[in-house]
């Protein structure tokens, strides 16, 4: 009898423990915040990648931070104008910028007045998996097929934009496999997709969420991901690393503020973001996009951005883009 009670009470306790965080997440008061309105800046235009990321986030963020969030599209100059806006704002926690590797590329390549060095990473939230893909009715079944072809003839890899992590991934794959291949950049993902589908290119590199339409229609075949581990949604797709080419790229998604954010502001966000990521409604949204949760607080995010910038700079110098 005692045992049963113990067992029951244990179950009840663990249930309570299990339920409680969920409840406190859903019903707890949002954390107090020094500003009523917080502006989240993105360099992408409405409907673009970072814009959708912010707008989805904003829908749920109010439950955890007591403020109204406004998305501001500061497009132009691939982030140069957004960085200027941030760098010249007060670091009081009233304005943040949705960062992706683009802002590092723009800083390094275009040398604008304000760069990523004038901003302070607040957090990294997700990693977008980059994948290598080919047309579904094409001859390539694996990364090895693509590389094998590039050994015999001239390989043709495509990427959406010249200043991008996708291009870096393709160039590094080419170097790792020591093959002669053209890495062809395009004016956006649509152009690239046409050239992959009509066979002009052997394979393309892109984010998995950009391929959803073609995947659903059975038009493209995923060959491998440039991630450290296999993707949860695509357990059969190997990583490029598994296939014998040591190329892993990390497309981070996070937030940065002007330099000099106060520890109090950082603390609110570092507490709120993990709660947001655990929110079941929000989870549904990002799981659909195959985003990998990769939460890092301000300090770790800062290190990640620094490492990424160093790696990218040396890559750009190697390939002759930067002198």
């Amino acid at each position, binding site marked *: 009898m005692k045992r049963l009670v113990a067992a029951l009470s244990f179950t009840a306790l663990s249930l309570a423990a299990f339920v409680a965080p969920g409840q406190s997440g859903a019903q707890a008061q949002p954390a107090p915040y020094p500003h009523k309105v917080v502006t989240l800046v993105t360099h992408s*235009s*409405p*409907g*673009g990648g970072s*814009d*959708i990321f912010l*707008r989805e986030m904003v829908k749920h963020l109010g439950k955890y931070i007591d403020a109204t969030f406004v998305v501001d*599209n*500061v*497009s*132009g*100059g*691939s982030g*140069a*104008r957004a960085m*200027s806006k941030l760098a010249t704002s007060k670091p009081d926690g009233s304005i943040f910028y949705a960062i992706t590797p683009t802002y590092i*590329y*723009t800083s390094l*390549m*275009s*040398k*604008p*007045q304000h760069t990523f060095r004038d901003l302070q990473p607040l957090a990294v939230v997700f990693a977008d998996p980059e994948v290598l893909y080919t047309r579904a009715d094409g001859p390539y079944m694996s990364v090895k097929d693509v590389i094998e072809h590039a050994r015999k003839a*001239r390989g*043709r890899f495509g990427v959406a*934009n*010249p*200043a991008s992590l996708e*291009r870096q991934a393709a160039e590094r794959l080419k170097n790792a496999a020591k093959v*002669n291949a*053209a890495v*062809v*950049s*395009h*004016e*956006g993902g*649509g*152009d690239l*997709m*046409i*050239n992959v*589908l*009509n066979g*002009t*290119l052997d394979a393309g590199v892109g984010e998995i969420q950009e391929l*959803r*339409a*073609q995947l*659903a*229609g*059975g*038009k493209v075949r995923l060959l491998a991901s440039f991630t450290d581990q296999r993707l949860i949604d695509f357990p059969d797709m190997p990583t490029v690393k598994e296939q014998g080419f040591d190329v892993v790229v990390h497309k981070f998604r996070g937030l940065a503020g002007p330099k000099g954010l106060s520890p109090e502001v950082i603390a609110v966000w570092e507490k709120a973001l993990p709660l947001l990521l655990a929110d079941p409604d929000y989870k549904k949204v990002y799981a*659909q996009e195959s985003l990998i949760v990769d939460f890092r607080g301000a300090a770790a995010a800062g290190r990640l951005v620094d490492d990424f910038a160093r790696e990218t700079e040396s890559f750009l110098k190697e390939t002759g*883009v930067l002198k």
Partner: protein
Amino acid sequence: MATASQIFTMLFATPVIPAALVGLVWGVIGGALPGLSASVTMALILPFTYALDPVSAIVLLASVYIGAEYGGSIPAILIRTPGTNSAAATVIDGYELKRQGRAGEALGVSLWSGVVGSLFGLFTLIAFTEPFSRLALAFTPMSYCALGVLGLSIIASLSGGSLLKSLAAGLVGMMVATVGIDPLSGVNRFTFDLPDLLGGVKPIMAMIGLFAVSELMRQSGGVDLGAQAAAGVRIVFPSWPMMKRLFKPQGIGCGVGLMEGLLPGGGGSVAAFFSYNEAKRWSKHPEEFGKGSVEGVAAPEAANNTVASSSLIPLLSFGIPGSNSAAVLLGGLLIHGLIPGPRLFEQNADVVMGLYVGSFIAILAQIPVGLMILPACMWMVNRPRPVLAAFVFLLVMSGVYSLNGAFFDVALVMGIGFLGWLMAKGGYPFLPAVLGVVLGPMVESNYRRSLLLSGGEHDIFLEDAIAVGFFVAAFFFLAYSLWRERMDARAANLKEA
């Protein structure tokens, strides 16, 4: 029968009609405001669609697109300012007609041609999405390069005077287009460390500068400040004989618009120029072009309105947008959890049906909405000239500022305007320069892309049948224009003698 009742329910039980009407009106206004391109007009209304159901949201966005493509022609005709990129070709004859006091006629023709183009585009979208989507896939970088060259060959026939000056203007346009981030390597070109130049000089800035600002400068230098050509404020809707005359240029516009809409990167402005040129080539009165030809208004307006529907073909069938505006629509679809592609037609047939029905309503509503808005616009441009010039200047500059929210752009457009004023003084035509800005990047990046693919061998162009076809066509067009110019010159000499 099931479909008929489905459409009936959709019309009266869902907010498709209000969505189409609101979208159309907003689109016409946004399109008519210089600086607000069709895609920006759509992007501005995108946040309002978050709360709507998917069908209404998509109908709203598609209707804005239809309205904006039409609205762009209003300022093109009335104040020589293309409201959107794709209205640039309408400026040529539209503004000329207005100067002759035939603005009402020009606006009527543009409205009617817009409706015809939109209906044709919607018809192909509904009936032929499948076969045309395959055509879109056939275009390689080599084909695009050749298409751009074919487009540039128009310069020769647009010269209307000195071929040399026309080519010089085209080259200036292409040079301007090289400013910004290199499309292939990502290196900065001619940006002089100015972050505002990273995005390059957008075609719309070149158009507004060359057409509108230079015209304002010319007007303010004139002595006839007080005078104003007497003009009626009535819209003259095309009569039946006129409709018959417009049939050919509209047909050309529809055909060209269909092609260009299918091809990502082509877009409305290329379609408008192509169709203008073809309409001139096949017209019974080619001498009227540039001097106020109604056909010169009908062809580009039919073309850019066709693009508004035909660019949805690659979007709906592959998820690949054929224009910037279609890209915003793609964003709208994704926000509502709709993934374009073959399965959209199976899984979200209601959304596709709604899109068709909503677009149809928006197209029909174009006529009453146009007839309501146009008299107000015409009243405005009939104010005393100094007042009008100041108003237009304010409108144009605020439009330019709103593109990126940067004063740099305002200065840039003023600079281009001054260049345009000098060009006009020296007898250099604007159109080749605008074509250079629009087509230069298309030719350059696809030429380099092709050579990158082949490892530097030009043979790759010969292996592409479409590219070969375009190059041959371009060669014949050029040869024909040169021959005709020589004949004209000889005829002129004979007359003098």
